[in-house]
């Protein structure tokens, strides 16, 4: 009897171990191959990827990484940087802030990267940046658009269109071109990016003589927005300014349409994902999103066209988004700075990086100002039409 039970237990245990091995195998193999390569080759320049491949903002991370890998390939094919090849060290923090700092630490101390590209979100970038600063490793975020990032230190950069530039431009646009006077402002309170962006919009709305007739807060991962929609519905706003992410944005608009609201939504690049349409369906038709890059072949220059073609070829014809373009530019910027400094020492090439001026990337023209804040033009305004993002207009910024 006892022996029987023991056997049963053993069988179950073996079964569980086998299942777990089967599930985890794929990812682990990849990692060990990477680290083997890392240990073997002494003449590669390692650039770390900090971002999410799983979790709520996986869509941002996965695209950034795609762009980075394309840039590394292009650089390596053209002979590398200072005679060395670029190697991208991957990681995944699962969209969690605490994991983000762990991954940063790991990239610096174990993988010995000279630069980190990431994180695509402002919140995690702000958590990771002090670690990079302390260890004197360059951190270039290809997505953090919120406030208080480069202030953390002189090793921290970003190559994005800033909310501080875009929010006023967009507010002016909806006021002058679309005639909006009264707006509802929706903020996701447990989202650093959203809280910061709402602040910028609030200021821009005031400066343009518009009025916030209703203001409501939500939280990331909320699914029920019935109370908030009911509260803003009676105020009859011309439009809804939504500063959160795509999942909640889609669900929010779904609820708004369900309750009979007609107003369309405008938001930042946090809304920029196909998930918005998946969650929102017809309800997000006409919604507007601004961003620093759009795959618009009609307006693209040669460099950008080449990038779009290469991306399409590697991704079954889908178009690159802002994150893949900025990920590509981030690696290119770093490589150009290393070439200019003739060194892979972060202390040296960060000086060259800070001098970047009118640099033509695939995602637009980038200049680093004296405070290392990027100036990027133009601002693209996209709209959802027939379930797809389409370029509606561009706004030049100076």
């Amino acid at each position, binding site marked *: 009897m006892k022996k029987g039970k023991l056997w049963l237990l053993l069988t179950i245990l073996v079964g569980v171990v086998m299942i777990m091995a089967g599930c985890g195998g794929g990812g682990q193999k990849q990692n060990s191959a990477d680290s083997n390569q890392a240990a073997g080759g002494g003449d590669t320049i390692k650039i770390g990827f900090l971002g999410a491949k799983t979790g709520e903002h996986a869509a941002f991370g996965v695209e950034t990484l795609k762009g980075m890998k394309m840039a590394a390939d292009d650089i390596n094919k053209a002979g590398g940087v200072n005679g060395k090849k670029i190697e991208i060290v991957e990681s995944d923090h699962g969209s969690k802030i605490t994991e983000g700092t762990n991954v940063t630490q790991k990239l610096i101390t174990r993988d010995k990267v000279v630069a980190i590209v990431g994180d695509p979100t402002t919140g995690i970038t702000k958590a990771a940046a002090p670690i990079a600063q302390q260890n004197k490793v360059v951190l270039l975020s290809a997505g953090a658009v919120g406030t208080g990032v480069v202030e953390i230190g002189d090793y921290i950069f970003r190559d994005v269109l800033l909310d501080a530039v875009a929010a006023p431009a967009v507010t002016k646009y909806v006021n002058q071109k679309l005639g909006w006077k009264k707006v509802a402002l929706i903020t996701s309170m447990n989202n650093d990016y959203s809280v910061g962006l709402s602040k910028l919009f609030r200021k821009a709305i005031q400066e343009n003589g518009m009025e916030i007739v209703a203001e409501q*807060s939500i939280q990331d991962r909320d699914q029920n927005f019935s109370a908030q929609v009911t509260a803003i519905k009676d105020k009859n706003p011309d439009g809804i300014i939504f500063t959160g992410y795509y999942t909640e944005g889609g669900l929010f608009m779904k609820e708004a349409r369900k309750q009979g609201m007609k107003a369309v939504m405008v938001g930042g690049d946090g809304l920029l994902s196909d998930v918005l349409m998946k969650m929102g369906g017809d309800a997000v038709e006409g919604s507007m999103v601004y961003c620093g890059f759009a795959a618009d072949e009609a307006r693209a220059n040669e460099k950008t066209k080449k990038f779009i073609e290469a991306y399409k070829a590697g991704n079954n014809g889908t178009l690159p988004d802002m994150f893949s373009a900025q990920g590509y530019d981030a690696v290119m910027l770093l490589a150009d700075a290393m070439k200019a400094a003739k060194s892979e020492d972060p202390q040296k090439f960060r000086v060259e990086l800070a001098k970047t001026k009118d640099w033509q990337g695939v995602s637009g023209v980038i200049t680093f100002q004296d405070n290392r804040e990027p100036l990027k033009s133009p601002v693209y305004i996209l709209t959802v039409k027939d379930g797809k993002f389409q370029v509606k207009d561009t706004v030049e910024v100076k």
Partner: protein
Amino acid sequence: MLTQQLLNGITLGATYALIALGYTMVYGIIQLINFAHGEIYMVGAFIGVLMVSVFHQGLLISLCAAMAFCMIMGVAIERVAYRPLRRSTRLAPLISAIGVSIFLQTLMTKIEGPQAVAFPHVINDSLYHMGAIEISKIQLIILVVSSLLMLGLHFIVKYVKIGKAMRAASEDYDTAALMGINVNRVISFTFAIGSALAAAGGVLVGMYFNSVAPLMGVLAGLKAFCAAVLGGIGSIPGAMLGGLFLGVAETLGVAGGFDLYKDAIAFTMLIVVLLFRPTGLLGRPIQRKV
């Protein structure tokens, strides 16, 4: 606008009540907080998505399929994870329940991915105006379906033989067994019914909020647990009342601008009620047998 918000709250509360019933019934009989209950709700919601998107079924069939699947799953979980531990310490099945809960979350994340999945279009939603308030078809469906389910549960517990057996077992487990009640069968039945209700809640919520996620069961489960304790754990009408109470309080809280404290409202209310009425709103005073 207040009546409109009340309606929003009652709709939300009805779904909490459906989940809370499962907690309360299981606790009433074997004094176990089934922490995997929220995950049964989540699995139910995913079965609903599967039925609609892959098998192209209507709402009614999807709802029934989700309920049937979760019934079997609930019974299976009880068989595998709780029954072998029934005679051990009270803590053992509780920890086992947490284990099952985490297992189901990760399993679903593995299958479906971590992102929320949109609930496919299953009915044409329309708005009905009734004086100052507007009620959507989906809200009506939620209210009607959950009322019918709760009425059905009431009927079973009050008038059907197995329901009487459930009441007997919740009164005194050992004595009920001595009186010839097949207690194991009663417990399996309790898990089956509780899981079916949770699955129904999952499908309705998925349809209402248009999104289903592998981690949706965590907070919903905690709040339903709160609702069960609030109403008096072990009491079926208590769970319904607790659920409604919580849904309304939460919605009014959000409408009043306390969105950040939305989840805290549930737990604060729980603490307050427990301070003044330790057995919950409709709970019976605890009797110590001598």
